[in-house]
């Protein structure tokens, strides 16, 4: 599949170097190379393909086959800037060609209109740096549609009364319903709510070179062996490679963006697989390294002109991190659901997307889904009812009874942006390459915790209405582990309170662009990848327009 790939020399000044090959980087690579530009994509992880995507839970999950490895890239955590950070595994992301889109759940909700204009609508919220986006849902709508059609999203238009307007239906029908979905749908309707088929970035119908989902059951956390999961790897990157103008260069760990004498980005400095330092020259740099690694790279690239981090005149690089709030309620039913078959989610609801703060006493909103995203070992070690026997005959009994009869109701919700919630460089800890480690600072806004508890209560109502035999939920706690990495280089018109402008161009460096979860201004209600990909399609249009009118330095 790499036959058509050009091999650029590091001394070639390509048009764009893109750092990161995930949800955003893959799409930008496809679009920019498709528009005639010469592109090098530097990906820190390996180039794996379908044949590598095994169902071995130990290899994939415990040994981090697809994800950042805590021994190589250790991290620290603290709740507030006043605390001393302690070494602790603080985040997980896909570290391979295709990035996190390779192993995600593939829930593909569009954001709603409210997510872009929430600050205007609700006013200031104490303790939060809530802000409107400089673009609206209407600006992004054509790009949401583009994601659905080009990347491949299954779903049913018009099934949710809360859906924002759309210009086109989904390109393919929803995936089949699972038993968890049927239980969810019936119970939700009993309660007067509006369940609907989950939009998923997983194929319900085959596409050229890709199979429809075969329901293997090793989905969340695993790469798809038949290309049904609409990852950047299975979609955009393959198209980018076919242009003959895009080189995907794996095992390339970028740790510095260099500026030339005029203050323009000159290229990216990276460690190759042998840990030799290489420099790729480029006319412009696009960073799509995710909401943790993008700000880290800018902070690592501090120089005389930008002593606090590249493109960080606002001081906002790494700040306003949002992880999305969320709670899980697990339920056991009388009859086998066999929910281990298939993708994770088949039914969701958005009745609580916009809650009335005056009524509920907090700001925010969310959605519920019915899912089973566990694989056998993980289930046996972590998903039996609290207090269950942990070994012996009684353990075996509860395990063999529950595995086919369990599902989860997942509440996904807002995280309000809080300025001190951030990714930054740890002062002491270094990674295996000698670079400062990522430090997570996070303390949920009190409203986020109230929202989680509120959604948990709705999940419990739903499980009751569904006739669950048993249900439980862990107590609501402040988060200290990051999966969704949002808001850390936010978009805005004001250079004092944002890092990039609506074209994804940094306010400070004219030929430096950022596009990934870090660009988001608000957190939506829990499913960010669809929006990250829509932004990437839009960013590619904006960047192409700038380049074509000669507005990029050459």
């Amino acid at each position, binding site marked *: 599949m790499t036959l058509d790939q050009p091999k650029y020399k590091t001394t070639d000044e390509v048009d764009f170097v893109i750092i990161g090959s995930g949800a955003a980087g893959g799409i930008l690579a496809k679009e920019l190379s498709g528009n005639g530009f010469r592109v090098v994509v530097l990906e820190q992880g390996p180039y794996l393909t379908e044949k590598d995507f095994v169902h071995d839970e*130990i290899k994939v999950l415990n040994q981090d086959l697809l994800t950042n490895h805590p021994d190589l890239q250790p991290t620290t955590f603290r709740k507030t800037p006043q605390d001393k950070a302690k070494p602790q595994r603080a985040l997980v992301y896909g570290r391979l060609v295709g990035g996190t889109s390779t192993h995600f759940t593939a829930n593909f909700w569009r954001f709603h209109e409210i997510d872009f204009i929430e600050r205007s609508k609700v006013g200031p919220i104490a303790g939060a740096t809530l802000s409107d986006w400089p673009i609206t849902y209407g600006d992004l709508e054509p790009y949401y549609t583009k994601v659905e059609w080009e990347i491949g999203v299954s779903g049913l238009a018009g099934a949710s009364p809360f859906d924002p307007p759309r210009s086109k239906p989904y390109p393919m029908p929803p995936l*089949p319903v699972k038993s968890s979905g049927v239980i969810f749908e019936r119970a939700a309707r009993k309660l007067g709510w509006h369940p*609907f088929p989950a939009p998923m970035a997983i194929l319900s119908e085959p596409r050229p070179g890709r*199979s429809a989902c075969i*329901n293997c059951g090793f989905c969340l956390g695993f790469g798809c062996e038949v290309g049904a999961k609409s990852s950047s790897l299975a979609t955009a990157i393959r198209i980018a490679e076919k242009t003959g103008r895009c080189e995907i260069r794996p095992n390339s760990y970028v740790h510095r963006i260099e500026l030339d004498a005029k203050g323009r980005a000159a290229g990216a400095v990276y460690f190759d697989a042998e840990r030799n330092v290489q420099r790729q020259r480029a006319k412009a740099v696009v960073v799509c390294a995710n909401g943790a690694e993008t700000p880290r790279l800018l902070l690592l690239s501090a120089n005389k002109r930008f002593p606090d981090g590249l493109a960080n005149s606002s001081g906002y690089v790494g700040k306003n991190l949002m992880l999305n709030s969320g709670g899980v309620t697990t339920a056991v039913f009388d009859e086998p659901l066999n929910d281990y078959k298939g993708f994770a989610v088949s039914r969701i609801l958005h009745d609580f997307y916009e809650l009335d703060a005056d009524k509920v006493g907090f700001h925010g909103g969310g959605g519920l889904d019915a899912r089973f995203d566990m694989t*056998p070992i993980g289930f046996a070690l972590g998903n039996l009812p609290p207090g269950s026997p942990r070994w*012996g005959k009684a353990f075996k009994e509860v395990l063999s009874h529950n595995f086919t009869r369990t599902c989860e109701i997942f509440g996904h919700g807002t995280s309000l942006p809080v300025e001190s919630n951030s990714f930054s460089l740890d002062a002491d800890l270094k990674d295996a390459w000698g670079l400062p480690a990522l430090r997570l600072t996070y303390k949920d806004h009190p409203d986020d915790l109230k929202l989680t508890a509120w959604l948990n209560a709705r999940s419990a109502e739903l499980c009751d209405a569904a006739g669950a035999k048993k249900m439980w939920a*862990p107590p609501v706690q402040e988060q200290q582990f990051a999966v969704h990495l949002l808001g850390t280089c936010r978009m805005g018109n004001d250079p004092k309170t944002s890092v990039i402008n609506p074209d994804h161009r940094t306010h400070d460096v004219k030929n430096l662009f950022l596009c990934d979860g870090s660009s988001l201004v608000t957190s939506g209600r829990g499913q960010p990848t669809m929006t990250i990909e829509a932004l990437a399609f839009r960013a590619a249009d904006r960047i192409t327009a700038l380049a074509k009118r000669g507005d990029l330095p050459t």
Partner: protein
Amino acid sequence: MNKDLSRRGFLSQSLTGVSAAWISAHWPAMLSAAVHAQKARSGAPAKLDFFSPEQAAEIGAVTARIIPTTDSPGAHEAGVIFFIDRALVTFAKDDQKTYAQGLPELQAKARELFPSVAKFSGATAEQQDQILQSLDEQSPAAGSRRSRRSTAAQSFFETVRVHTIMGFLIDPDSDKRGNHDGVGWRVIGREPEHMFRPPFGYYDKDYPGWQSNPPDSEKSKS
């Protein structure tokens, strides 16, 4: 119902739905995976890489109390001891010490509680359970969502417990010698295939198909 849907079966019958390019790109890998799995199953009796036969008998006896053989197969039938033996020279090398130190402690505990018992494997099932009960410090609680990401089990018993569960439930097609013949999956009700067709379970088998939500003009907001 899905017996004919092996992954290889899938390849041959899905020619209509999947492009020839996909088939040609993936056929060799899928084929070799299938052959490999076949070989692992039908091959010569597994040999030990880490344990002595005596040690294997002791640890094997522990695994057989963690997931006992009842009216259905347990850790013994799943060949968990061979999984652990290979684990300790591959991905779980760091746990060698835990086993090396834990085994004498296990035997000491056995003699302490039952002076007539020379070896753990020589005790009755009830005695074995009592010995393990006293070793089980109830360390990490069940129910933590992210516990599967961490294998950092500390005590000897907890290490063997986690390894036993892994060896019982690992994908039998993996190279880890666990879940022999897929018996672990059979016990928990997971069918052996890696592809399935709906209906999947009891509640979706009579699903009439998607019907719109009943009309209610008001968007309900709480």
